């Protein structure tokens, strides 16, 4: 690896770590600060981890157990310490050690956060990666074809469908798709059928077909429209005319000159979208009953579960950073004008 590339990577990694530290501080601040602005006390926060009609004693015990009786900077310090050197967790009859990096224990289910993230990540990864392949291929293909056949029935039909894809939310298309393809036609398994790849690859694949297509439908629509617009703009450029004038075959003009240039912004957006999705495809996971990071984040947010919210947010941020880094590196491959060094 050239030295300059290595230095570039090091700079990006340091930047990513700094960003994650800032994200963790912001999440901590939001979690405690915003509710306080609305008048919520730590007693009320603790009460959400106690049963119905809790006594003052139960609230006080819970507040103490979760460290909510300590100032916010002390809590943050304890959390950071857990990440760096690990922490102890009292189960009641025994104490267990959570090794570094320990992202704390869920306020709600008392399980270490990191194993939960590791447990949920494969489902989200399976969902996002499969859908990404579909939407990238189909979206770009449809966009290119629409641009080449601009104004045709094909173009109009494709763009109307794309508009539908962009407009219809997942929980609408997902439910309709489930009802039609699963419960009526019986072509694919229904909601809640996801199993990990390691458990049964066949069922894993079958259970993800509908979520992949539903999720890809939403994104493919956007990519088709972006590709079409980019291609139309590029095809009007002077260098395309020059390429054609040189007598290059149309296929070469389209694929090597026009498409290559169009793909640069598409790739940027793809990196962002994929990074975001890897942090949790919330609606798709909810609609299809897939226990991924998105569902975990929703549970964390609705349950006032700070350690889980922090964990998922950091993972999501990490994915976005990594995805962006990969995209930046890929620029050099796609666009000859961009070279590192």
């Amino acid at each position, binding site marked *: 690896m050239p030295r300059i590339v290595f230095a570039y990577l090091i700079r990006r990694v340091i930047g990513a770590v700094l960003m994650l530290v800032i994200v963790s501080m912001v999440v901590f601040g939001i979690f405690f600060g915003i509710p306080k602005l609305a008048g919520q006390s730590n007693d009320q926060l603790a009460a959400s981890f106690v049963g119905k009609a809790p006594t003052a004693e139960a609230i006080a*015990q819970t507040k103490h157990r979760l460290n909510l009786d300590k100032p916010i900077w002390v809590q943050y310090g304890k959390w950071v310490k857990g990440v760096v050197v690990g922490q102890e967790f009292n189960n009641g009859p025994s104490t267990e050690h959570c090794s570094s990096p320990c992202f704390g224990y869920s306020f709600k289910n008392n399980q270490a956060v990191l194993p939960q993230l590791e447990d949920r990540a494969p489902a989200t990864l399976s969902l996002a990666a499969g859908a990404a392949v579909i939407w990238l291929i189909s979206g770009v293909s449809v966009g290119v074809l629409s641009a080449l056949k601009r104004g045709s029935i094909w173009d109009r039909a494709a763009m109307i469908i794309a508009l539908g894809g962009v407009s219809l939310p997942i929980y609408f298309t997902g439910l309709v798709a489930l009802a039609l393809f699963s*419960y*009526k036609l019986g072509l694919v398994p229904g909601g809640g059928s996801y199993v990990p790849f390691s458990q049964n690859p066949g069922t894993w694949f079958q259970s993800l077909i509908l979520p992949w297509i539903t999720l890809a439908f939403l994104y493919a629509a956007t990519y088709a429209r972006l590709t079409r617009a980019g291609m139309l703009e590029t095809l009007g450029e002077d260098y395309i005319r020059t390429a054609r004038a040189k007598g290059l075959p149309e296929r070469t003009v389209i694929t090597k000159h026009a498409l290559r240039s169009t793909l640069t912004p598409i790739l940027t957006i793809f990196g962002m979208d994929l990074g975001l999705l890897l942090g949790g495809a919330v609606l798709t996971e909810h609609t299809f009953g897939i226990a991924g990071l998105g569902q975990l984040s929703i549970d964390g947010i609705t349950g006032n579960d700070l350690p889980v919210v922090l964990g998922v947010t950091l993972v999501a941020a990490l994915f976005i950073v990594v995805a962006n880094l990969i995209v930046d590196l890929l620029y050099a491959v796609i666009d000859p004008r961009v070279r590192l060094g």
Partner: protein
Amino acid sequence: MKKIRPLAAVAAGLVATTGLAACGGGSGSTSDKGAGYNAAVDKVINTSDKKGGTLRFAISDDFDSPDPGNTYYAWSQNFARLYGRGLLTFKPTAGPDSNTVIPDLAQGPGQTPDNGKTWTYKLRSGVKFDDGTPVTSKDVKYAVERSNFTDELQLGPKYFKAYLQDNSTPYRGPYKDKSPEGLKSIETPDDTTITFKLSKPFAEFDYLVAMAQTMPVPAAKDTGLKYEQKMVSSGPYKVDSYERGKSMILSRNPNWDQSTDPIRKALPDRIELQLKQSGDDIDNRLLAGSLDMDAAGVGVQAGTQGKLLTDPAKKANTDNPLQGYLRFASLNLHVAPLDNVHCRRAVQYATDKVAMQSAYGGPLAGGDIATTILPPGTVGYTKFDKYPQTYKQGGGLDDQTIAKAKGELQQCGKPNGFKTKISARSDRPKEVAMAQAMQQGLKAAGIETEIVQYPAGDYFNKYVGAPEFVHKNGVGIMLMAWSADWPTGYGFLSQILDGRAIKPSGGNNLPEENNPAINKAFDEAIGNTDKDARAKVYGQIDQMAMDDAVDIPIIYAKALLYRPPNVTNVGITSGYGGQYDYLNMGVKK
């Protein structure tokens, strides 16, 4: 997730209207003729002793905890009986009898030689945990101690802690207090006898021991907050796996002996519970036959209701039971002018309950118009109507009822009405809609109101359950809902009408009712071991509270439930708030 509900309902509605779902495809989809609308409300239907198959549950939520010692949810306690046996449990039947408690791990109901201050239970012999070790009374004592006295397990009720005698040095639970005798007021003279000594007579103790907290836990296997991951079963099924937010799988407990358990049929070979599933998808799967039961037991989604009710075949597989809840408005006795009983009675007459019922979802999804605080099905319920209302043809209270309200206003010294505030939970749109309907209705009598909204999470802890806040902010009318932890008048009323339940915050006695006659009646009732006499007193307490006009009953909550024809032994239990009883469910195929 709440935000997506309306659009999800539209999607479900589209699915429903286009007839996409429920046409087949699932393994259990059948054209079986249903047993009839509301058939399972009063009796167990599809009765069967056929063993085998897999019973498939799903729910849109998760357990608070599946640990029997750390759960409060009604469905969770209903479900826990598949893998645990408490001393007593609710009778697995339907109708009024389903709120009676019968022996489970115990041989018989509690014996009390001193009018409810000491309770002794004899355990059945031969009961074993799933690891083959015998269940003893010490395991029950330990279960009660850990669930009520530890700092860690805080999700379940704490009634044992409230009613049992404490040690001379306050007992701190088995995790901190390692002394062999533990809580001295629970005695286990031998392996099959357990005696509870209370600080005062409590005639309904049998209901307390019917809670999941008496399901035995062997001390050596207790892992505290982690116990839910590896529970030891005493019921007919053992827990093969429980994954938070994903699923729970049960299979037969090889050490469960039918001869020790006369109330369970243990029909399915395997029970699956999927957690955190989409509510709309659960409905679709139930209709398609690829799922057997929604474990939540709170009714189908809004988009599914129309579909079920417009198709006679599907309607024949539905039930619309009472859920044991009352939705009501409390009138605070310290916020003028509602400190005057006549002003409160004026509000009683001028409240348009029908409009509020419609706002909450109508008779099917909302419930029946209520006239009493105790809902039907609760021990002690007595039907009466202190403030009868009549309505105009096109809706709204008629002139006669409004005249009654104005008459009360006259006596209150506010002939032209008054102003006050109505509170509702901001994140419960149906409750806010109820407040708006109430506001409109009260206008007709000259009572002007301002609606104030507070978040549900802090509703009782910070706002309406904190008297100081209520007085300072003049919140005269507070909307809320209430259900009992056990289905008797004491279980339902004591927290919302007993003056000693008023707390600086987090209380549920929102009107701050502190009527000495009511307080005395509670004490006399709970110290009386005559069940019928107690029931009579509960009805009287209800009438006294309505005389005081402190609460306006709006609706007895109901829900529309769907039971797939594939499921056997289906009946609504009022012991667990109007859900289906899961104890003896099976599947046809």
